[in-house]
């Protein structure tokens, strides 16, 4: 039983560290989101089309 819990602990630890490892690879979606946010600010695109955008979920997604 003790051995089993050791194995489980090692497996969990490695899966958790795998999640952290993913971080090292380039986060393409996050980069795109960051780029869009900056471009909107630089080109001032938020209030395009006259009326204020209908509750743009800017912080989400």
């Amino acid at each position, binding site marked *: 039983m003790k051995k089993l819990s050791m194995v489980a602990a090692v497996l969990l630890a490695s899966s*958790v560290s795998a999640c952290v490892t993913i971080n090292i690879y380039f986060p393409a979606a996050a*980069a795109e989101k960051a780029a869009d946010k900056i471009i909107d600010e630089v080109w001032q695109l938020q209030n395009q089309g006259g009326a204020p955008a209908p509750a743009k979920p800017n912080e989400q997604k």
Partner: protein
Amino acid sequence: MHSQNLRLWVVAMLLWLPVLAFAAADLEINTPAISSLKMAMQSRHSQLASHYASGAVGLTRDGLVALRDAALVPLAQRQAVGSLVAAENQDRKALYREIARANGHPEWEEEIHSTFAQRWVQKAAPGWWYQNHGGAWVKK
């Protein structure tokens, strides 16, 4: 007793996963260096916008801007537009570098650069000019 303990462990570990995923969700873009570059580019944009619209200045395929048709700029302004383009490119390169650095991965600079290259074109207004993959100028 042991298996109960183990189950507790598993639950505790699983509870951490969303936290880790959340931490990886966003890139840091709120540093003083990035903010000041953004502000400089924003104020420069008011001067560049008319040149994007006329087609004198276009968006290059590598995420920068270029004077694509100087003849569209009145002679007296040509030099000024040239300096605007140079300053904009300097800030853009610095911006890509700073974002990579702010996130602790200077090696990401090139990928951030190419991400921006696509997004600038995507968000460009109709009528503006950009370079396609082959390097030819296309009107949006």
